[in-house]
């Protein structure tokens, strides 16, 4: 597996005076599944369009397999693109659509037929090859688009919110299908989404976007457990944020003093020095609730103000001296009534301190 198969080097995109992608660096390895995750308008599509060659690059370089491709026309880039609206050719049958990229490459007729059949079988649509796209359901059209983008074995597959238009059940099925194809075919996939669950489920790495910049690019676990800043911590999953001052640093453990005087031991970003302001990100499911505080965990007392039954867990809102904290408790634990006085606790490795 060659590292840095695709490299974005200080890539910038301006629309008029508006800068929608700014000095963006990103390296993607061959065979990797990278999701671009971010709120709408954060520049994900723009980055993908620049990689595909639909949009020009305003500054910086895009390098593919050691070759700078800024000025390479789209049809020579050899990238399979799956669009959100499928972009199937309405006047061609499913088979013709899938054969299109092969015909453009001058593949022999017999080989085209067998490869089209294989690609359609791969997405379980072999029996619909004579239909027109208009006669297929949304999910089927999306699978045709997928087959069309994969049939010519492109160097990279780009997908721009390909599942956005599908209903939840179909979307989850397609997520698994795409992930499975990725593993089986060893594809390099760049996948744009604004759905964090989708990104967490499918990706090797997630690049979190905001305002045209990558906030963090790491494995789903890393992005979730160890966000690099407040935006990432808040954008992915739910979190409690407690502001304080770093009072001591020993190894990877920081001591954070909250305004009320409570001191927490927590892991956190490197580079903190005593006296720095710090922000503790505490995932609700990492919080335990005790009747009496045990040894060796960070403790905080408070009063339950709300309990919401959510099937597989309870969501409990606790008012503490450090502010309102939300905890997510396995429902096998005792059910906490409103007004109950509780002690909540978490281990140092379950907290994460970031810059405020």
């Amino acid at each position, binding site marked *: 597996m060659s590292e840095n198969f695709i490299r974005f080097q200080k890539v910038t995109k301006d629309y008029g005076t508006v800068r929608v992608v700014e000095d963006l660096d990103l390296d993607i390895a061959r065979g990797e599944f990278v999701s671009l995750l971010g709120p709408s308008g954060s520049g994900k599509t723009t980055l993908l369009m620049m990689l*595909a*060659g*639909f949009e020009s690059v305003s500054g910086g370089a895009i390098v593919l397999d050691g070759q700078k491709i800024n000025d390479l*026309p*789209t*049809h*020579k*880039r*050899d*990238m*399979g*693109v799956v*669009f959100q*609206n499928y*972009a*199937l*050719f*309405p*006047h*061609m049958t499913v088979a013709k659509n899938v054969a*299109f*990229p092969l015909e*453009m*490459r001058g593949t022999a007729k017999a080989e085209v037929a067998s490869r089209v059949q294989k690609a359609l079988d791969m997405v379980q649509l072999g029996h619909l090859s004579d239909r*027109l796209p*208009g006669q297929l359901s949304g999910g089927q059209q999306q699978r045709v688009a997928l087959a*069309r*983008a994969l049939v*010519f074995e492109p160097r990279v597959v*780009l997908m721009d919110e390909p599942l956005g238009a599908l209903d939840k059940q179909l979307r989850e099925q397609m997520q698994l299908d795409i992930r499975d194809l990725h593993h089986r075919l060893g594809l390099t996939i760049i996948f744009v989404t604004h759905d964090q669950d989708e990104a967490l489920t499918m990706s090797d790495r997630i690049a979190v976007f905001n305002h045209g910049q990558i906030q963090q690019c790491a494995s789903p676990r890393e992005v979730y457990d160890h966000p690099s800043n407040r935006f990432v911590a808040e954008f992915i999953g739910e979190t409690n944020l407690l502001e304080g001052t770093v009072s001591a640093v020993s190894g990877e453990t920081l001591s954070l003093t909250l305004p009320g005087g409570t001191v927490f031991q927590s892991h956190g970003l490197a580079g903190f020095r005593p006296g720095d302001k710090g922000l503790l990100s505490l995932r609700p499911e990492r919080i335990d609730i005790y009747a009496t505080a045990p040894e060796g965990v960070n403790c905080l007392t408070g009063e339950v103000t709300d309990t919401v039954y959510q099937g597989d867990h309870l969501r409990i809102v606790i008012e503490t001296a450090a502010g309102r904290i939300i905890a997510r408790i396995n429902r096998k634990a005792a059910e906490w009534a409103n007004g109950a006085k509780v002690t909540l606790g978490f281990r140092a490795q379950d907290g994460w301190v970031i810059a405020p």
Partner: protein
Amino acid sequence: MTASSRFRSPGVRALILIAPLLVFLGLFFVWPLVTVISQAVSDPAVSRVLPQTAAAIDDWDGEGVPAPEIQAAFRADIVANTDEQAMGDVTRRLNSSKSGFRSLMGKTVSAVRETPDIDLAEVDKRWADPVFWKAIQDNASPYTDAFLLASLDMERDSSGSVAAMKEGTSANFTILMRTLWTSALVTLCCLVIGLPYAMIAASVSGWKRAVLLGAVLLPLWTSLLVRTAAWMIILQDNGIINQSLMGIGVISEPLVLIYNRFGVVLAMTHVLLPFMVLPIYSVLITVPGNLMSAAASLGAHPVRAFLRVLLPLSLRGVISGALLVFMASIGYYITPALLGGAADQMISSVIADYSIKSANWSMAAAIGLILLVLTLALYAVYNRLSRDPVQAR
């Protein structure tokens, strides 16, 4: 059943609601059309003056001299007729089928008037020749294809079979062919300009699109006469084009841009361009914008992407546009009349000549009918081609 309960049935109510429309259509569309068609194929000259003969001679087998009853009917018709001019028409008509009728009829009419039951063969021995009776039989029908044939420069020869008219006697067919050719030329020009224009208009947005569409629509909102006159001003020998070309020294003599085919095609293309651009545009804006991007990403060179994706998808609009322009072209009158030379006149001007100058309504109607048939045939083609848009590839 009472009237009110009858009106309550939905079918009847619907019929009452559209009745004004049906009356309008009948009065201003169907009736004139029927009139024109019947005018084009009816030839009452002989059957009106010789009604009894026409009825009697209908099933004569053409062998030998007709039966005495037919001859008696002929004599009776001659006696009954009071309209000398109508009889003159009949004589002329019969004479054009068989020469010799002029003298024969003159002789016969005065003889029969004197002696109503005279034996015709005695008046003139030509009445013993079946050929003359045959001419009467041929012309006796109130219907004729002579006008339709004449509008295509054809006629029936003495044996009754269709043949081309003598060269130089009529130019209808030539003008019809010229009309089709000019229309084809105009259609082609509209296509060559209109297709890229519509594609550009559909691919831009905002004010650019508004300006592009406005530029096409503007001519539609201007009177045809005004636009044609404007072209006359632009194209004439001391018009803008010739003056500026001479001004910059490209030419020393003014180019002949008007009163020839060039002027006609140019002005008609300008006038009819919207009918090409709008159908293509309306088809193209329904095409998702990223199909061309998709084609490029799949390895299609822009030219191939155009040929394989955009062109087939715009074909339905192209067909509608081409037929609209062509159908409108073949009926054009004012523009060729004002901007063309004598050799550029189209079939409509022939219709106008027949109806205004020589008051030959039958010929005018016959040529009009030919145009109508042509248009209907094109419409049938259009219907067939545009029926299944998806298969239009």
